[in-house]
Every structure is written in structure tokens, then in C-alpha cells.
């Protein structure tokens, strides 16, 4: 994961920059409007955080409870330690039921596991059905750049070119017409796939159900039409009751897209009864660990509250500037900068915990009150403890510590530094290029100091103002 190289490329990408600018205002204003109709937004956030804590603080028991209930409804419950096991289990299920085509509604866990590639290798055709995910799949399996709006980095023109190319239809730039074209292509898949694959927004322990939130109706399609339905979801997604589901649903769509409720909110329990006209005959839950179990009870335990709304990235100045792909893995933005090191290894994502200004916009909007900046800071500490930071940085910090413990020397250094920076700025009040740290001045100017250090100013002030 070459975060820094990615960032440079993304900043230089004119089309992407335009698309990001177009997107960011919409998410932020829509959410701000939508939370107004909750009389007590803060109390609702507290309640939501409490619900999530209740489960993750006793996750073993809640998982067993959910499993029992789900089995009672006629579903099967499977467990996967990692992505490899997810792929193996799903392919086994597909083979058992003679499946040749799988329609998928959005599942981040399947992205984590690289399931599409594994299915293809096994001769089973995966079809993404969320419009955003579909656009990416037909564009050479491009990865999503946002957990709610996967193709947010693409412009209308890009989609128009793409559909023209893959569907062989006349190029059109009318968004409703493009949407209809995708609808027609995908409808045929919905009707013929033998297996539907979905994620799960929540697992309800009380009833052994999965709750799915969608707007397009593809979630309903993949869980209604095929004879087999497989739910792939993280072990942390359990919530206690249907009442808790209602509380969380007041926050999830508002935080994600600024809707008071999503168009479709489906609570699916068990399999089709013999006399029923529709619904799957087989329902499987694949409960996935992939690093989650080891987060339980540790320094990053609170991260397991996350309900994947995407508000933290929508409000993040870094995400708004570089987009989701720069983060290098499935989860972008502040939540990704915490999750990627935890699930993919701290040593594999050295830059991510630093890809934040710690401005706490994310912490303020997070519907389950995850203190994202604190977690990012803790990750930075871990990196330092494990000696993972670059040598120059480590030496630099040692040096700084040594100097900082010697006040006279420190004052001298500050004096020299302040004057050097003032000299660099010349007649202006800003520095265009810092020769010692050129990256700092890559996209912005550095404000020039006035020439005197704080200590000098302080001393001057004390000697000029008479004591009271």
C-alpha cells in the first residue's frame, strides 16, 4: 500500500478532483438537514453507542444467542476466520446447490475477501447489482472508493463512455436513461441467478434475522428471487432487539445519505415456507472474523461499534481531497485509517494513521460516537512503540527530545529557526517552498513567522509592562 504515491497521483488527477468537489457538499448538507428532525440527536447517538457497546462488550454470548435463533428459523450458520475461508465456504455452498451465477448486493466483507475473483476462478459468475458496484465491476473490476457510494469518484461522462463500450448501446448522458439501461441488463441476471449474496447491516439476536438497508431494491431482489441466499457479515454486527434496530435506523440512513429512512429496509428471517410463492429455500450466514476477534477487549475495541455509515469520510478534509482509492484497501477515510491497520496489519499501512489532521470532524459526526482521532493517535503510538516509523523520523524525534530538555539550547534553536523562516519569506508573509520539508508546502503556503520567538516576545512584554 503506497499511500504517499497514491496521494500524489490523486491530487494531480483533474477529473477526480472535480468529481470529489462535486460530491462532498451534497453528503454534508443532506446529513445536516436530515438530523434536524430528530428532536434529540445527541441522546439518540448516546442510545446507539450504548446498544453497540452492549453487544461488543459481551460479543461471545450475543453471537451464541444469534446463532441459536438463526438455527431455529431454519438458517445455517457458518464461521470464517479469514477471507480465504469465506471464499472456500461460499464456493462450497454454490457447488452444493449447482449454482452457476451469483447476484450480489453490496458486501464490504466480500471485497475484503476478494470473493469475486475466487468465484470466477471456480467457474461461477458473480454479478454486482448495486448500480455503483456494477459500474465498477464492468470497468475491469475497479475497487470501490466509498463504502456507501462506491463509484463516487466517477463522472457522468465516464459512466456514459463505459456503458456505451460494455453494453454496445448508443452513448447517452441522461442519468435516468443510463440507470434504466443498467436496470434492464441486471433484471435478466436477477431472474436467472441461482444464488443471491448480500452483506448484512445488522444481525438481530432476538429473532435470528439479518437486516438489510438499500435504496435501489437490489437487496430485495437478491434475497427474494434466487433459491439460495448467503449473508456474509462481520461477527461484530449483532444487535439485541428489533427495538434497537429501530433506534439505529434513525441514525444510519441520516448519517449515510441524509435520508430519514432508506427506501427499503428488509428484515429477513429463515427460509421460504412450502406454501409460499417466493423467497429462498436455503439461507446461510457466514460470520466472518478477519481480524475482528483480536480487536475485542483491546485498545481499539470501540471501533467495533462502527455501523459503516460513511459519515466520517464524507466529512474528512483528507478524504475530500484525495478520494477513497488512495487509502489502498476496502475501507477509506478515517474509519479505514483505523480498520486497515487493524485488519491488514499495522506494519502494512504505516502512513494511514497519519493521513488525518486530527480535526475531529469524524468524531463529531460518527453516529455511534467512535473517538476516531483518539484511535488514530493510539495507532501512531503503537507504530512508535514497535519501532515502525522511518529511521529519519526516529532520529529526528530523539534529537528534538534531547534539545527540548535543554532550555537554553532550545531557545537558541528557536531564535535561529524563526529568523531563518522570516528570511525565507522575504518581503511577503508566506513561504512558498520549505527546503527542509518540501511536502508541507506542496499544496499550500507556509505562514512566515514575524521574526521573534514566543519567548522573546514574552520577555519583552514582561519588562515593558509594570507589575500590578
Amino acid at each position, binding site marked *: 500500500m503506497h499511500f504517499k504515491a497514491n496521494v500524489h497521483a490523486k491530487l494531480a488527477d483533474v477529473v477526480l478532483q472535480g468529481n470529489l468537489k462535486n460530491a462532498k457538499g451534497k453528503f454534508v448538507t443532506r446529513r445536516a438537514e436530515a438530523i434536524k428532525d430528530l*428532536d434529540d440527536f445527541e441522546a439518540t447517538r448516546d442510545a446507539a453507542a450504548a446498544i453497540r457497546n452492549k453487544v461488543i462488550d459481551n460479543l461471545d454470548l450475543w453471537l451464541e444467542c444469534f446463532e441459536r435463533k438463526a438455527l431455529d428459523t431454519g438458517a445455517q450458520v457458518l*464461521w470464517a476466520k479469514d477471507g480465504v475461508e469465506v471464499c472456500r465456504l461460499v464456493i462450497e455452498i454454490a457447488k452444493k446447490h449447482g449454482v452457476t451465477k451469483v447476484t450480489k448486493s453490496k458486501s464490504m466483507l466480500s471485497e475484503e475477501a476478494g470473493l469475486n475473483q475466487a468465484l470466477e476462478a471456480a467457474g461461477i459468475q458473480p454479478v454486482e*447489482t448495486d448500480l455503483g458496484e456494477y459500474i465498477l465491476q464492468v470497468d475491469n473490476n475497479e475497487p470501490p472508493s466509498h463504502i456507501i457510494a462506491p463509484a463516487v469518484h466517477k463522472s457522468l461522462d465516464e459512466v456514459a463512455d463505459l456503458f456505451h463500450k460494455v453494453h454496445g448501446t448508443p452513448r447517452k448522458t441522461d442519468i435516468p436513461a443510463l440507470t434504466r439501461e443498467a*436496470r434492464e441488463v441486471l433484471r435478466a441476471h436477477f431472474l436467472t441467478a441461482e444464488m443471491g449474496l448480500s452483506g448484512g447491516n445488522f444481525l438481530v439476536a432476538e429473532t435470528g434475522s439479518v437486516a438489510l438497508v438499500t435504496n435501489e*431494491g437490489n437487496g430485495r431482489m437478491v434475497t427474494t428471487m434466487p433459491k439460495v441466499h448467503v449473508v456474509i457479515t462481520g461477527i461484530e454486527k449483532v444487535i439485541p432487539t428489533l427495538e434497537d434496530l*429501530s433506534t439505529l435506523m434513525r441514525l444510519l440512513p441520516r448519517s449515510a445519505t441524509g435520508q430519514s429512512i432508506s427506501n427499503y429496509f428488509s428484515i429477513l428471517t429463515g427460509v421460504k415456507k412450502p406454501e409460499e*410463492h417466493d423467497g429462498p429455500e436455503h439461507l446461510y450466514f457466514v460470520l466472518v472474523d478477519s481480524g475482528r476477534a483480536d480487536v475485542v477487549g483491546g485498545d481499539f475495541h470501540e471501533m467495533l461499534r462502527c455501523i459503516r455509515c460513511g459519515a466520517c469520510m464524507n466529512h474528512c478534509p483528507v478524504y475530500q481531497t484525495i478520494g477513497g482509492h488512495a487509502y489502498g484497501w476496502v475501507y477509506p477515510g478515517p474509519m479505514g485509517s483505523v480498520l486497515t491497520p487493524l485488519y491488514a496489519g499495522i506494519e502494512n499501512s504505516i502512513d494511514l494513521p497519519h493521513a488525518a489532521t486530527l480535526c475531529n470532524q469524524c468524531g463529531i459526526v460518527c453516529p455511534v460516537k467512535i473517538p476516531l482521532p483518539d484511535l488514530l493517535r493510539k495507532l501512531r503510538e503503537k507504530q512508535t512503540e514497535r519501532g515502525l516509523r522511518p529511521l529519519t523520523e526516529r532520529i529526528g524525534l530523539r534529537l528534538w527530545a534531547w534539545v527540548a530538555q535543554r532550555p537554553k539550547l532550545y531557545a537558541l534553536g528557536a531564535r535561529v529557526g524563526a529568523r531563518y523562516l522570516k528570511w525565507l519569506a522575504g518581503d511577503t508573509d508566506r513561504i512558498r517552498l520549505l527546503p527542509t520539508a518540501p511536502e508541507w508546502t506542496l499544496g499550500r503556503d507556509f505562514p512566515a513567522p514575524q521574526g521573534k520567538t514566543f519567548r522573546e516576545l514574552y520577555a519583552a512584554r514582561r519588562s515593558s509592562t509594570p507589575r500590578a
Partner: protein
Amino acid sequence: MSSRDDILGRVRAGLHRNASNAAVAREEMLAALTNRSQGPKPGIDAEPKALLERFRLKSEQQSSTVDIVAQESDVPAAVARYLAAMNLPKSAVAWPSLARLDWAAAGLQVEGRGARDADLVGITGCFCAVAETGTLMVCSSPDTPATVSLLPETHIAVVHASRILAYMEDAWAVARKELGALPRAVNFISGPSRTGDIEQTIVLGAHGPYRVHLVIVSD
């Protein structure tokens, strides 16, 4: 070791699980499942007229259209009116539970069954409706197949005013009382299907219906 045992084992280790804290936690879990405490809810006037008004308003905000009739026997004529005004076909698929209405008298051909791809109009009832958000609660059963509100481009739903409740929480209480266990699919539907995946521009009619029309029976 099975993956299940391995995963649960590591979760237990992380939580420092032992017999005594397990007993306490189990009790808390049982309490949560029996108390079913509710979170904060926005204030809503629960007086029946106000509920209907709010449901109507919120449904329209979700891009549904709304008609109100006095009694259930008026529904077929109202549906025929809507289909004519929208220039839509006069034939429809309906929930078997609604087949008893006199559709033919209103000049409509209505078949009570599950929907197929070719059906253009689907007529359903609803288990109840939620005024807070303008949402239909639709439960699957042999008499109320899920496909009817999903496959056709036009979805018409009959809503009895007496079934309009303030909150989703109220709907759960009614479901527990009347249905016992949850049916296979509970779908909360709020307006036509939509997507914002191309440049965050909201387009109605993604994979589900393009339009949702509600006929409220004021009883």
C-alpha cells in the same frame, strides 16, 4: 479446532471471560431481550387524524403519491382512476388476499398471485404503516407474496388508516401480538426505488418500482 471455536475462543480471551462474569453478562443479555427498551423518538401527535396527515405528508416527501377513499369497496375505482390518469395498463397482479375486491366492476383485470417479470402493475396491502417516516410495513406470506411490491414498475398499496402507527417500535409490538414469530420477509418500503450512484443525482426507479401510489382507506 473449528473456526467457530477458534473465533469464539479469541473473543472470550479478549473479554477475559470466566464463569462469574459470564453469569452476570448472561443475566444482562436476558434482561435486554425481555425489556426491549426503546431509544429516544421524535415527538409525534398520536391522534388518528394527525397520524394520517403525517403519514400522507411524509409519504409524499418520499415521492409516493396518495389518494384517500372512504371505504375498502372504493379501492378498485380509485386504482382504475390512477392507472387511467397515468396512462398505465388496466391489468395488474395483486396479493391473493386482495383478490376478493370487485376489480372487474372498475374495469380492471386483476390476478391474485405472486408477480412475474412481465407484470407492470402490482397491488398490495400492508401489515401496517409508520407515520414517523411515511413507510409501509409489508410482511411476506402465501397470501401476501413479496414479489408484488418489487418486480412491477408501478406499486399500488392499500393502507387502512386504522393501521397507521406512529413509530416502527409500535409496528414491532403489533407484529409480535398478531404474528408471533417474524415472517420470512418484513419489508419497510418508503417510496419508489431510487439510486444516487451517478454523480449523487437521485433517480427514481432503480431495480424496484418507478412509482408508488398509496390508496388510504379512511374507514
